[in-house]
């Protein structure tokens, strides 16, 4: 048994209670590595903790609940169900008492790999939302206290743009490549390890690898080829360890760009359009909605019985928070990006338009 405490910017505090590490953990990496930068050295007081995640062997389901679709056991502040994704299977129980969550998960070996991406990420988003913060799926850089956010779906180039900007010797500092926290017009960095594979590695990042990372990176690439693409393992590169000199502190939001890849490959330039704040809110909300599949599904099911509960109103609250947390006086843009266009050309184009 291991108990780990995490503290994200003094806003979200949580505890993970895990079983013994498995062999898979040693090969693929700790399932909670995502939050290693927020690991608290001291034990946090239980009353300060927003949620607890317990990885357990079995769940004692509560009696006398409602039963929906023969597999969702629901009551006020309570959800318990079994679910699966491909070969990953799990049972999950969510208990809400006084605004604090206890989430127990019984994962099979494959589901263990997804615990952070499928569940904990979303719980963090939920808690931030309850505390009137916003979190968006976006990368960001800052310069002179001003921040520039690049939001997009996975693989749309968020990471590549941010990395190119900080490695261009123009004083851009890094704020995160996956999620950014927003409050009252300020963006707050959120440092998670970068997931690197041969297609998103830049010379800059390759140069930041430590010797053992270089080795595992090549090994994983080889494994990928040998298994014809089945065994795809990312190499994690932690900004805090690998390029601590380029990290940013909180900064005022100056621009938000929404990147949308297109197959208009005959175009030699990206199509950059100014969009309204309400459009940006839609893009950011839809982006997060598409990312998180399971908890939102449980919340919808829950909403059939308890439509006025915070679980059921999550997306409404999320949107309302964006409306109050995003600044009104700044410019928002959508970038329709032909997939054939190089990052250098895109950054040139953004600079020519004096958008940075």
């Amino acid at each position: 048994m291991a108990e780990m405490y995490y503290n994200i910017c003094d806003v979200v505090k949580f505890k993970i209670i895990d079983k013994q590490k498995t062999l898979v953990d040693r090969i693929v990496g700790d399932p909670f590595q995502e939050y290693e930068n927020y690991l608290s050295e001291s034990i946090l007081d239980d009353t300060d903790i927003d949620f607890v995640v317990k990885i357990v062997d079995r769940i004692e389901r509560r009696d006398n609940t409602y039963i929906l679709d023969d597999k969702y056991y629901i009551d006020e502040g309570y959800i318990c169900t079994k679910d699966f994704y491909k070969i990953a299977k799990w049972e999950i129980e969510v208990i809400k008492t006084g605004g604090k969550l206890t989430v127990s998960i019984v994962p099979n070996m494959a589901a263990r790999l997804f615990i952070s991406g499928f569940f904990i990420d979303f719980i963090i988003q939920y808690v931030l939302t309850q505390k009137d913060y916003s979190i968006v799926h976006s990368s960001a850089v800052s310069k002179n206290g001003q921040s520039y956010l690049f939001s997009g779906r996975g693989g749309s180039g968020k990471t590549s743009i941010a990395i190119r900007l900080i490695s261009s010797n123009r004083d851009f500092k890094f704020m995160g490549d996956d999620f950014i926290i927003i409050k009252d017009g300020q963006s707050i960095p959120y440092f998670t390890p970068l997931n690197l594979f041969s297609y998103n590695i830049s010379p800059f990042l390759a140069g930041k690898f430590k010797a053992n990372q270089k080795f595992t990176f090549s090994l994983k690439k080889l494994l990928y080829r040998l298994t014809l693409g089945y065994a795809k393992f990312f190499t994690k590169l932690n900004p805090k360890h690998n390029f601590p000199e380029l990290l940013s502190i909180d900064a005022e939001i100056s621009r938000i760009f929404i990147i949308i890849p297109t197959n208009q490959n005959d175009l030699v330039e990206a199509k950059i359009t100014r969009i309204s704040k309400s459009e940006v809110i839609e893009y950011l909300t839809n982006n997060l909605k598409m990312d998180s599949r399971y908890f939102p599904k449980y919340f919808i099911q829950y909403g059939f019985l308890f439509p006025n509960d915070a679980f059921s109103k999550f997306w409404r609250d999320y949107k309302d928070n964006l409306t109050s947390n995003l600044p009104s006086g700044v410019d928002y843009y959508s970038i329709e990006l032909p997939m054939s266009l190089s990052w250098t050309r895109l950054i040139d184009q953004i600079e020519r338009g004096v958008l940075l």
Partner: protein
Amino acid sequence: MSIGKYYNIHNLIKFKIVSERTCIRPLEDINYFFSYFETEEFTNEDILLRIGPFSPVNNNCKVIDHKYYIKENYFYCKDQEEHVTWEVEIHGFEHGKTIINFHSHSRRVEQLFLPEYLAQNIILRPLIELKLLEKGYVVIHGLGLARGKNSILIAARGGAHKTRTIMDALKSSEIKLVGDDRLIIGKGGTVYSYPLFLRLVLFRMEHLQSEKISIIRDRLSMIRYLSQNKEMDTKRYVTDRSDFTKLVFVQRKEDCISCNEYISKSIPLAECCDRLTSSSKMEMFSSGLKSMGFVPFYKYIQAYSYAFPMSQIGNYWERYSTTLQTILADVSIYDLSVPKDYPPTLLDYYVEMMEDFEKPLE
């Protein structure tokens, strides 16, 4: 060679399905969902579904998640769930006449009858719901029972004894069915019949002891039944158009034991619309193919909404909820918990509720 079939849902929506002939004739004639609405040939269909190989025109698209090709009023993707792969292209996704191209493949034996089933289940059914909303009608998830010109709607998630209630209703001569899984409701509290599984229920009643179809022999006899009883008169079980003044939410509760004393409470309209919207989302989310964790259409709506957030589809769920608010403005709404095991008096209770127009319930 291909064959075309024509369907008309109460003149609210007309569609045509064109599919390639397979080598096994009886399988072609299984009409999974829409046999009730099959009609003579017509020309002005709202939706045309073409099943078979096609070449997409997915140039100049926004590409979402490396997978969804989207431009205005257009959607294309290749998708996969376990052993089944499919390719779908939708012209007229948002407005105008809709043309769907659909091609699927499975490595299993079900490939013989899968393409049509899959196309109807994961694409056509949700698309009909989109099109109906465009015209001001809402498809809700639930069961409808009618007696004469009056009906009661029962909104429930799975496991709330809907099938058993339907079976009991079909046995009675006075009670007719409005819908067995979905209902089309419109302005002024009008409900149109939308039976999708009626023949399947009839098959179960005639041939099976239990509710579940589990063994292969049952499945085979089901296929035979569905392909042979095509002309079967299902109209006599159904009321096509009726007025409803009551809607009751029903859910199963583990500790609810009382079979004879039902307690239903009244709930406000806004809450009701939220609950019906949740149920409809869940339907687009949950099992289509038995093994499928997700009905893909929910993701398709999300992807289109991401590409065009200010579009009709981008606001689909908001429009769904607001249209419900208008339709249900004068309807009485109740909430009822039922025991885990099917209470034999449940149908009587619904009928009592339906007839009891004057006396408000507890």
